[in-house]
């Protein structure tokens, strides 16, 4: 019996209508796997915020989700511009999103803070000009 499942998603560049596809697929799968509803909510909200971030700031990227019997691990990696000041970026309401993105209702500065809030563990590795990798874990 396989005791882990690894799922991979590609997040497209600049397409808001498609942002959220990965998190809704994960939601569907977690429901079918019988994961507790409140855990699913945490995973989906954290991952959706990450997806949106990748679309707004990083020209898309890749998400790998690993599910084991004790936790769900999401690794979101992009080849975007990197985060200049991670401490500022973690503050609620701080945003570097351009006006055209804000006019769409995104860029409220809640992305990273919400990802942190809804995951049990989060790590951000970022390098200017190279990209960012966010690892989030939600315990089961």
């Amino acid at each position: 019996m396989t005791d882990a499942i690894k799922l991979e998603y590609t997040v497209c560049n600049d397409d808001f209508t498609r942002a959220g596809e990965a998190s809704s697929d994960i939601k569907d799968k977690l429901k079918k796997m019988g994961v507790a509803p409140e855990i699913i909510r945490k995973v989906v909200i954290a991952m959706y915020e990450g997806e949106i971030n990748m679309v707004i700031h990083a020209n898309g990227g890749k998400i790998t989700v690993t599910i084991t019997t004790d936790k769900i691990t999401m690794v979101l990696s992009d080849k975007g511009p990197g985060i200049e000041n991670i401490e500022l970026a973690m503050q609620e309401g701080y945003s570097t999103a351009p006006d055209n993105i804000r006019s769409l209702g995104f860029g409220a500065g809640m992305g990273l803070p919400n990802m942190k809030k809804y995951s049990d563990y989060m790590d951000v590795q970022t390098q200017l000009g190279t990209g960012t990798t966010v690892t989030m874990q939600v315990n089961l």
Partner: protein
Amino acid sequence: MSSEFYHSVHIDVDLCMGCINCIKRCPTQAIRVQHGKAKIIKEFCIDCGECIRICPHHAKIASYDPIDVIKNYEYTVALPAPSLYGQFNNLDDVNIVLSALKLLGFNDVYEVSAAAEMISEMSRHYISEHHDKTPFISTACPSVVRLIRVRFPNLIDHLLPFTAPVDLAAQIARKKAMADTGLSSDKIGIIFISPCPAKVTACKEPLGCDISNVDAVVAIKDVYPLLLPLMKTTAHDPEECAVSGRIGVGWGNSGGEAGGLLTDSYLAADGIENVIRVLEDLEDRKFHNLDFIELDACSGGCVGGVLCVENPYVAQAKLKKLCKYLPISRNHIGKTILDGAMLERKIEFEPVYRLSKNFAESISLMAKIDELCSKFPGLDCGSCGAPTCKALAEDIARGLAREGDCVPLLKEYIYNLSDSISHNN
């Protein structure tokens, strides 16, 4: 758990041709074609009636009671749904319809829209007193409630804890009939004139209470042709039976229930696919600051039910016109919560989509589904009898189908086989 999954929608096996129209249209992927016939998976079906609409062979049937059911009782009360009024041309007085129902053989009538007005008033107070728990989701459409119950467990606590208007109407009508006649409850027939099969299911197997006060459910489409000639008679001097106003009658249209709450802080979605999108977004907390969410499985609201006759949008327009001449509301109950108006028990989550009770096994099955999906062609052709390749993969993981059911894969296998045979020869 599953004894609870009674359904009023079922299949006439003789008429079913085994085509794939219904499996593609079913919003909960509850239908499979096996051995040339469609089969409804009862745990997944929400009685929305989409398959009845789409089936070109009329092989999907809603069960309900024939009008003759009134002969089973000494005294009968008709409970017309407000959507009934939207079926008739140029109707300017509801009493014409209500009097015609009496001529048809009912001893009395009580408008469901009257109870709807009471639910509206109670909901207004309830929402203002429990504002911290908003948004509240309407419990009036039984298909939506069932959908939430099996697929959106996080939203169950948001369901407005009131019964549907028909349930309250049935209680009021029964009490009145017993008081008027002195008959015992079993001699009285409370008969709902329904726009949809989901209401049939809800009466046979009520959610949130043990027994429904509705004794039988008759379809609007069966009553409609019988009422037309009788309405010619009653049109001249109809008896005054109407007891509801604009708020109650408005419930027949999408947005009507929300309108009765006298707030702008609401969302009203109709059509089951739209409803599912709203529920998904609501579950992911993608919108905020709404007091009320009205969701109707049928396009247009209850006037769009499959047991109605008129085009839903035409019926909507007719109801609106009729409402114009009505007082806003004719039922005022103050701040009281009427007996039987609230759900008696909490609606429970039913994890019907869960692959296994054992999480480790679920992981393993999901891995298998993922592997199968990458193997299948992704055409979602439906030839296997499942609506999508993914649904087939899930069926296989659940032990309900085989890999060989995939027709394009089988074709490829046969080509390869014949190639290798001719090559060997």
